[in-house]
């Protein structure tokens, strides 16, 4: 591909030395090997002689003593340079200089098969008539653990805050999530970094630790995560919530454990986690205390025992082999299974893992649902879709594909004020969400931000309600894939949804999802 005319060269004349004092500086003209700049030998003025000659090497910008030069692609970087985009070039330079791979926070950055190429099918005359969003009721409640434990979760809305640990998030952010959950009747989750004490009462709607002053109705739930690092885990910890979630993996870095870099391990976090201040807290990628599925089954059994058989047991999976993984969780006695797709986020992960490992969220759902159906437990063992869920539209689509509820992780951070800088791991979050620095944390008011989170959830719930009712349903439990169409071949191929216009699934999906047994030697 030619690079002629591919880049825009701009010089800030206000700071350029040559502009102010001709002849005093001609660094750009001297350093540019492509003849973009020219120095007038008589006046000493530097000018851009040939924009088209710029190849985007940016050597002039690097050498400019006043940082006055900017080189930008005339077209998208992906058209001008792909696959050697500026980001790729900088990444290679970084590795060459440091010998280190890139770490970053948040989720995938590039276009990934997602919910956007799925459309909702409204109801008209040939299908059950639409319901009136303004004057009729719509059931959005989800119950987890009915018949298997003494205290099932009754989520008022089909949403959860997925696991985000204390450490990855600030204490204030954890408190805000708890308050948001309390105001909307949904569940928040400790994550694997131990318990912030305030989560216990705030998530249930109480403003005091004695549970005497209820500030927020209806009150929500607290899910306690049990994971591979076992940070801050004890019998009391397990009994401080309303459910226990066994973490197997997560969307942003399936097959890896947790990464909390030393810069975020403050005295308070070190105390909870039982590690030295400033040391990296790296959760193992697997349970050291599980070698077989039978072990995991025994683990579920003792978790039920330690919690006196009161609470549901949930599993959280990364996006790997959804059919087999979900089937295994069912065998293990899960009451609910979260499956976190490729688009899922994190506080810190190797860039290549977040970017390139795992199955897209929309492709995880059909095999996961099929596993539940094949075991006769679809809608009984609840399926929670995670990974890039942004609004009620994504939530509706996930639920129509067979999920019972969805989680808003990255979206929750954004609702708290995050601007998605992908640098959560550095601990400098200016909004106090992922920072442990007091000056940053002080910017996050848990009550105010808790209200923002509740507003976000209420808005998304209304969106789900609109879509459910215009599709002819009064309950999210009645949603099905018939309420959706894929808008391109790729999406139809990944999901098995009917292709819009063709109104049938692609031929290889006509009999639905067919599990492919993993051969023993592949395991």
């Amino acid at each position: 591909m030619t690079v002629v005319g591919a880049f825009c060269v701009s010089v800030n004349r206000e700071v350029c030395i040559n502009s102010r004092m001709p002849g005093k500086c001609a660094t750009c003209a001297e350093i540019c090997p492509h003849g973009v700049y020219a120095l007038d030998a008589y006046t000493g003025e530097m000018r851009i002689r040939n924009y088209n000659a710029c190849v985007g090497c940016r050597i002039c910008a690097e050498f400019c003593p006043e940082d006055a030069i900017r080189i930008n692609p005339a077209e998208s970087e992906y058209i001008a340079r792909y696959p050697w985009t500026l980001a790729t070039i900088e990444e290679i330079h970084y590795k060459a200089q440091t010998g280190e791979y890139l770490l970053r926070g948040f989720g995938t950055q590039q276009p990934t098969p997602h919910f956007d190429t799925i459309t909702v099918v409204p109801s008209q005359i040939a299908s059950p008539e639409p319901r009136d969003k303004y004057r009729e009721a719509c059931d959005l409640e989800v119950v987890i653990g009915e018949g298997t434990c003494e205290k099932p979760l009754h989520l008022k809305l089909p949403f959860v805050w997925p696991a985000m640990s204390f450490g990855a998030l600030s204490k204030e952010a954890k408190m805000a999530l708890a308050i948001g959950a309390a105001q909307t009747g949904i569940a928040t989750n400790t994550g694997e970094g131990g318990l912030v004490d305030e989560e216990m009462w705030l998530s249930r709607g109480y403003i005091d630790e004695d549970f005497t002053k209820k500030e927020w109705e209806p009150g929500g739930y607290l899910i306690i995560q049990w994971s591979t690092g076992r940070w801050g885990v004890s019998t009391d910890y397990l009994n401080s919530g309303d459910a226990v979630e066994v973490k197997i993996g997560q969307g942003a870095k399936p097959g890896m454990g947790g990464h909390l870099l030393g810069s975020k391990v403050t005295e308070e976090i070190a105390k909870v986690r039982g590690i030295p201040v400033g040391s990296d807290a790296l959760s193992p990628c697997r349970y050291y205390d599980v070698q077989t599925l039978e072990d995991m089954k025994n683990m579920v059994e003792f978790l039920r025992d330690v919690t006196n058989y009161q609470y549901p047991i949930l599993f959280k999976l990364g996006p790997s082999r959804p059919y087999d993984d979900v089937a295994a969780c069912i065998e293990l006695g899960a009451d609910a299974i979260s499956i976190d797709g490729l688009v899922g986020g994190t506080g810190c992960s190797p860039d290549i893992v977040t970017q390139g490992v795992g199955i897209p969220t929309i492709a995880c759902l059909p095999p996961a649902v099929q596993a539940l159906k094949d075991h006769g437990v679809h809608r009984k063992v609840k399926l929670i879709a995670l990974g890039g869920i942004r609004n009620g539209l994504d939530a509706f689509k996930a639920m129509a594909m067979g999920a019972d509820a969805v989680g808003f992780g990255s979206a929750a951070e954004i609702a708290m004020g995050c601007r998605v800088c992908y640098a959560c791991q550095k601990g400098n979050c200016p909004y106090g969400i992922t920072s442990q620095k007091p000056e940053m944390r002080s910017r996050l008011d848990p009550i105010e931000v808790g209200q923002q989170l509740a507003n976000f959830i209420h808005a998304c719930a209304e969106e789900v309600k609109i879509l459910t009712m215009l599709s002819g349903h009064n309950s999210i439990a009645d949603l099905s894939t018939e309420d959706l169409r894929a808008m391109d071949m790729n999406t139809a191929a990944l999901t098995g949804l009917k292709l819009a216009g063709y109104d049938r699934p692609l031929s290889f999906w006509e009999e639905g999802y067919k599990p492919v047994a993993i051969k023993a030697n592949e395991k």
Partner: protein
Amino acid sequence: MTVINAKAKDLKTISNKLKENLNEEPIEVTNASHLHGLVAGLKHGEVIIQGNAGDYFGVLNAGATIRVTGDSGNYTADNMTSGTIIVDGNAGYGAGQYCYDGSVIIYGDAGDFTATMNKGAVIIVAGNVGDETGTYMLDGDLVVVGDAGENFANFLIRGNVYIGGKWKSLGHNTRVEELTQGDIEKLSGYFQTYDIKADPTKFTKIVAASEKPFYK
């Protein structure tokens, strides 16, 4: 003494009986080797398992004193936060993992990955230990009177590892250090308390080379 016969009973039944009788110390449980996760999460009391115990014996112990007179299965004393667990025989794979506090004493041998991610407990093995023992230990004391296998104390972060015998190979991020008088007195105290015949002055001490070995 309350005696509970666990023969052909399930975990829930025996666990409920244990909790009901917890104040009548000690409680003796017989025929319990088929139960995994037995005596989990107790905050007080004294329990004796006559014979062998299954996997996850004493998991999440939060203060009870528990003894098994025979062997225990895999993952003994998993994630203990307080109390004492004593195994008169051998322990299987992964004893004393993820413990925060309390003491685990194994008079026989212990398997691979013993004391992995120990965060503060005292774990004493009077016999030998398998490979990868003390992996990613974050605090506490690990005392091995006999020999250790490969990758001993791999990626040690903090805490003290003492060994009376030899190891096949030492793990990453480890450093051998001279015993101090304090170490010798501490080991003497352990051996006296738990009636273990060993000379503390003959032990080798292993500590972490760095508290931050993974990322700069």
